[in-house]
């Protein structure tokens, strides 16, 4: 930055809102607590960094891998429907204490997940939930008018299809196993996984068509 242009407007970040918003009470509290715990040697700053990195590794791609495997391997699908957490471990993914319950979509039944009380979501498999999943309108409306809500996501289900809404009100976490798109008969697991979107595993969409 030259001396002649030395005023805030020359800084491309100057108008970024975050630069002008002071930390909130809870942000300050969180930072202070973390610094104190590090100072007291309960854990190291690197441990915090490591935990953040592990959190960021949890992305919907992990769920997509599991769905694609279920599409090509009926025995695995059966085990996954019986015990989702054990199926995760089989693929080398750590569910922690999450009790993963898999709900299979069929031509007759479509499943959709919500947490009407807060934002419970299979984070160990999919990462943090999208903003709409945590929003009050989604949480309140998907139980009251599931068909209207799904239609707003672009999903029009035939009248004859039963919608099962699963409210994650206690200890279980849910994953929807979407139906395998037709025309993918000889596809590899990897190619199939690319068709499995986050929204299809929440149940507000179906898998991508090839």
């Amino acid at each position, binding site marked *: 930055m030259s001396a002649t242009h030395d005023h805030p407007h020359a800084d491309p970040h100057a108008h970024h809102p975050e630069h002008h918003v002071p930390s909130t009470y809870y942000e300050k509290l969180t930072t202070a607590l973390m610094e104190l715990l590090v100072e007291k040697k309960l854990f190291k700053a690197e441990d915090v960094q490591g935990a953040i990195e592990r959190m960021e590794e949890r992305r919907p791609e992990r769920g997509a891998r599991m769905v694609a495997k279920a599409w090509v391997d009926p025995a695995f699908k059966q085990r996954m429907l019986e015990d989702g957490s054990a199926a995760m471990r089989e693929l080398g993914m750590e569910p922690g204490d999450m009790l993963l319950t898999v709900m299979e979509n069929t031509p007759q039944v479509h499943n959709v997940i919500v947490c009407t009380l807060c934002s419970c979501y299979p984070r160990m498999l999919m990462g943090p939930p999208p903003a709409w999943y945590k929003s009050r309108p989604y949480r309140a409306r998907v*139980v*009251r008018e599931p068909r209207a809500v799904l239609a707003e996501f672009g999903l029009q289900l035939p009248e004859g299809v*039963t*919608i*099962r*809404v699963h409210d994650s*009100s*206690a*200890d*279980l976490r849910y994953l929807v196993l979407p139906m395998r798109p037709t025309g993918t008969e000889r596809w590899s697991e990897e190619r199939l996984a690319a068709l499995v979107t986050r929204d299809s595993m929440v149940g507000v969409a179906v898998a991508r068509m090839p």
Partner: protein
Amino acid sequence: MSFAAGERVRVRAMFPLGHVRTPFYARGKSGIVERVVGRFDNPEQLAYGRSGDKKTLYRVRFEQSDIFPETPSAHDTIDIEIFEHWLEKA
């Protein structure tokens, strides 16, 4: 009181204060036990740092139109996880 899968149950219409994981919309409504999930710490105690109060957790399936008759969605269902002390025979 314990229930078996397939049994009809009603969610107690009670309104205690504190941390409760039984959705308001299900209270007083009846449904069918979809499965017995297992024994878990009661969240109403866990929320206040008291563990060890194990309760049986059930998945109960309700007809959407029984719960929301003003916006009925025929044949559609709502499954909710509910602890034993919130359920009674219906």
